[in-house]
Every structure is written in C-alpha cells, then in structure tokens.
C-alpha cells in the first residue's frame, strides 16, 4: 500500500569555491512514501536546505549536483530537462520556504498570483482558476477566503502569508512537498495552526512531505520518520520513536540530552562540546569525532551506514543495542 514517491541515492551537491570544494551534501540517501511525513533535522550548515534545493533542481552555481540519483515516481530527475523540471515544480512537487516572500510577489493581489500559478500548469478558465485558488486558501484555514483572495501580501500577518504560500504549494495537489523551516520564524500558536493544517492535508491528500527543521519537538509531534543530518550526511534515520527514544548516534543523543527538560532545573544542561566543523575544515574520518565522547582511533576512518533505509546510523560505536520489537 505504501507507494514509494521519492528515492534518493548517494546524492552529492558540491560548491566549487576559490577556497576549495564545499561538500554541502555528500552522499545522502532518502526514501519517502505517499502520505509520509519525514522530518529532516540538523544544525545550520549541515546541508538540509541544499538537499531540498537539489531535489527540485534549484541549486544555483557554483553549486552542482555532482553524483547520485533522484527518482521521483520512478522518473530520474537528474536526467530531466530544465523544461520538465519546471513543469514538475509547482505542479507535482512544491517547495515552501522559511520566508513566504520568496514565494509571494508584494505588488500583486494574492488571487492574481494564485490564478497565474494555476494556469501555468492546467488548462482552466480564469473563473475556474479563481475557484481553485479560493478553495486552497480555505483549506489552509484563511478565514473568509472569497474576500481575502483580493488582498495584497502586506495586508496579511507573517503567519497568514505563510499560509498563503502553503496554499500556493497545494494548488495542484502535489505529490511531494519540501518544506524548509516554514514555521521557524512564526509564533508558537501560529506555528501550531499551520502544523495542524499540514498534518490534516498530508493525511487527506496522501502527499509526501519532507519537513526540514532544527526543532526536534516539532518533528516529534508532526513526523513519522526522521533523518538527522550532520556535515552533509545523514548520520541517523528511523521512525520518530526509534530515533528519539533509542538514538544510536552520539550526535543525536547529544541533541536530545541538551534540551532543557522539566527536571533539569538547578543542574547544568548536558552540552555537546565544540562547534560544527566549518564546511572547508571537516576533520578526517567521522566528522563528529572532535565533539564525540565515544571516539576511538577507529573513528579516524569514515563510518559507513549500518542498517538500512528505514533504520540506520553512521557510527563505529553505536550507543544502544536496538530493542527488537
């Protein structure tokens, strides 16, 4: 029943810069099924956004997908023409950005923009397109969509603009949505409204959703599966329960432990020492080694992935023995 939507294998996206090659994404594997929400977490610079852009063919020079395959419903997107990718974007695959103004044009009424988007991908009349736009606005919880459709972006609050951007992403009922920290800049109660809509829509429409975030709490509540990125690679993956309850990678464990919990008051928080390595100064072997309390000489070579695409990790000294169900 779970139909595979997206299969990414050994994706590498590199930037040739005067100072050297930035390996922003360096061998990423991903699988996503219909109706699945995958949380992609990691600290800034770990390669989350570039992974998302790579899937859509939106990496700007000097960046380039240098290796790997991206299969979307069986179609090889790396081999697809620019025109084919344009046709897919906004139709079968949509992206939602952290800043909704990346999607919205400030001097156009949102209805105008939405009608344009509809008609770019479907042969429908203006009236039909307008009706579709209005329905999409209603779907993301914009009150009185038939009135608000004629408003300009500045007449909406930040949270409402993000909903409009989501409505635009939903116009063609895409199969896949890649959402890059779309609620990070929003307030908690507004974030919660948007998460609620997104959750409902994936359930009802059977879309696949990749939700990029650095907030483990959001991912825990929203997603079924999670992939943790560090220095351009996925270092741990599994169901939310597996990854958050029995993390195998010391970095995942460190992230979870460093969150202040109810009973931590009065004692120092467990912290991960040091900083993420700069993209051009990654250490040899396991990139987490300088910050890892479990490192041994074995970690001077690179750990490959243990497990499979549903549950796996990259570490020579995984923490727990997986509790088998």
């Amino acid at each position, binding site marked *: 029943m779970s139909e595979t939507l997206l299969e990414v294998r050994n994706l590498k996206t590199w930037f040739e810069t005067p100072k050297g090659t930035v390996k922003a994404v360096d061998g990423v594997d991903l699988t996503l099924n219909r109706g699945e929400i995958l949380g992609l977490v990691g600290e800034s610079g770990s390669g989350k956004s570039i992974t998302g852009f790579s899937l859509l063919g939106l990496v700007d020079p000097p960046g380039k997908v240098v290796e790997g395959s991206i299969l979307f419903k069986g179609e090889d997107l790396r081999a697809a023409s620019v025109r084919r990718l344009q046709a897919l974007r906004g139709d079968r695959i949509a992206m939602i950005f952290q800043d909704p103004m990346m999607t919205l044009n400030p001097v156009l009424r949102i209805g105008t923009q939405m009608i344009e988007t509809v008609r770019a991908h479907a042969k429908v009349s203006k009236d039909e397109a307008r009706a579709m736009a209005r329905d999409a606005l209603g779907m993301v919880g914009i009150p009185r969509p038939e009135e608000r459709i004629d408003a300009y972006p*500045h007449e909406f609050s930040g949270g409402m603009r993000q909903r409009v951007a989501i409505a635009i992403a939903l116009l063609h009922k895409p199969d896949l949505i890649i959402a890059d920290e779309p609620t990070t800049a929003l307030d908690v109660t507004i974030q919660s409204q948007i998460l609620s809509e997104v959750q409902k829509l994936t359930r009802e429409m059977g879309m696949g959703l990749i939700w990029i975030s650095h*907030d483990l709490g959001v991912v825990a509540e929203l997603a079924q599966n999670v992939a943790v990125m560090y220095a351009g690679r996925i270092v741990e993956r599994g169901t939310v329960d597996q990854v958050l309850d029995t993390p195998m990678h010391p970095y995942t464990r460190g992230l979870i432990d460093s969150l202040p*919990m109810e009973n931590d008051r009065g004692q120092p928080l467990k912290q991960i020492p040091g*900083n993420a390595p700069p993209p051009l100064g990654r250490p040899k072997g396991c990139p987490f080694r300088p910050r890892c309390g479990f490192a041994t000489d074995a970690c001077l070579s690179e750990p490959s992935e243990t497990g499979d695409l549903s549950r796996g990790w990259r570490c020579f000294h995984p923490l727990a023995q997986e509790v088998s169900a």
Partner: protein
Amino acid sequence: MNQPLIKVDTVTKHFVRKTDVAERIAIRAGLAEEPKIVHALDEVSLEIAKGEVVGLVGESGCGKSTLGRVVAGMLPVTAGSVARDGQDIATLKGRAAKDNRLATQIIFQDPMSSLNPRKKVGEIIGEAPRLHGIVPRGEVPALVEKLMGQVGLDPAMVNRYPHQFSGGQRQRIGIARALAVNPDFLVCDESIAALDVSIQAQVINLLVQLKQDLGLTLLFISHDLSVVRYISDRVVIMYLGRVVESAPTHQIFDRPRHPYTQALLEEIPRIDRRGHRFNTVKGEIPSPVNPPKGCHFHPRCPFAMDICRQERPPLVTAETGHTVACHLNGGAGHLPATTQQQTQQGVSS
C-alpha cells in the same frame, strides 16, 4: 519584601509604526496607507528582585524587546516610570545616569549585527572599560583576557575578527563585552534564539554560571518556554503590549491561569509527544496598531464573555506571588478542568 532592584510602574510606550518590506513596496506603489501609532507597551508594571531571574515570554511584536530596552534605560517611556533601587531612572543626571546605564547591559539575539566587523575581539571587549575608565588603561588587556576566559573563549584569539568565530562564540563575545563594565543586571533578549540546538545549552550553562559567580539579576526574554522554565525563577507572560500573567516558574507551568498562557503551554512542541493532533487557538494575533477593546485576547479566547469585549481586566493577585489579568472567576482566571478536579479530590479525600 525588600525594595526591588527594578520597578516598572504603569509604563506605556508608543511608536510610530515601522513597516516591513512588503508594506514599504506597497506604500510606494500606492496600495497601502502610511503607518500609524503602535501601542508597544500599554500600562505595564513589573518588579524584579535583586538576584532574581525573570523570564519574559510572548509572541512576536508583543513588546518584550521594548520592555527590555525601557528597563535598561535605552528607550524613554511615553508614560509611567522605571525605578532602579527606588530611584526613577529618568531623573538621574550626569555621573549617576552613566552609572545606571552601565549597570544594566543588554545581550541581543544576533551577535553578528551587534559586533563591529572591523574591530578585533580584544578591541570590542576592551572598548567600554577603556572609554569609561573601569580599569587603568594599562590593565585593559589583562581584563580582556580575564573576561574571555570567563565566557569560555580562548584568550589566544584576542586578535581575531568577529566573522572568524562561530555563532556560539560570537554570542560569548557579546556576553564578555556586556560584563566588561561590571553590570549587576543583564537583559538577555532572545540571546540564544539564533544559535543551533547543540550550542544553546553551552550558552545557557554559561549564563547560569555567570549569574551565580557574579550575583547577577537577569531579565531573560525568550519565546522558548522550555528554556525559560529551566532558567527562570519567575515567568512573566505578555500579550499585545500587556502583562497578562506572572508567577513563580513551577506555578505558571503547573497551574497557568490565563487562557492565553494555557494555550501557549499546550502548543509548545515537545519531543516526548508523538503524532500530536494539533488543536489550536484560533485566529491571528491582532495588530498592536489597532488592539481590540477590553481584553486584548478576547477575539481568540474560547471563554470570552461580554465584559471581556468592553473592559480591560486588571492584573490582580490570584494567589501568593501569582498575578493574572482575566475576568474569569472574579478575576482569578481560568483553571483547567484537571486542576479543578484534583483540587476537589484533594478536598474530599
């Protein structure tokens, strides 16, 4: 109670409204009107005791930073007063005014934008002590070295520029710079928000350590309630320019009384909650240019009554140390059903 270190008394602050990019373009294109008055703070009162850590929480634009800057004396008030050690800071002159300014320091969210990119770290940290004669000139380098050690920066990096540091290290530079003038009160305005999760814990631990070592008082502004719960002795919740609730930390988390606080606590994403069905407060946050009449929360409040649409609920003491501004239950606010049941069970058993 002893005299509070800081007493904010019925402070109101108005601004002429700032516009964002979308609006500026719209104004230029003739699609929007020119800005109006923003009610950033609307009769806010607050006391901070010496040595206390007060967490200040609220949604974007509700006036947290404005209150922080008012408390630090960086921003004049429209009405009301701010007193430090019982003295209205607006009446301070000369030496006393300067001492007051130095005694309160703000640590901002984005360390990069508050650090001069063309100055070396040593100059950034040593600038204020040199300027204000905190120590004799010759001793400034030693002071810088001490401060860098105190915030966990390698003093060998004294000649580097801000861009050569990571985000967490830059925040440490900002903290060292603030400490350089011997403040006794720090306003931390979203000081960890821009940092990665793995770095946040480092900076929080540092702030707690410094607070203990130096006997500091903190006003900790944040939208991250789990961090606020960890660090604060008392939590103050703001909504649209007003304080709506204030209580000791455990009390506000165990028994929040304001419907807004309750909604906020319910919606904080938690890693121990899976597949949550989000069930949310409806509606947008109203604009502070045009706040609703009566209780500012009434358009979104599930319990709103007629009086809420007409009259502002006063901030009253509902139980010891716990104040709330809500018309429910004669001004005591709303207690969730579970708590009421527990209380009843407690009484009957």
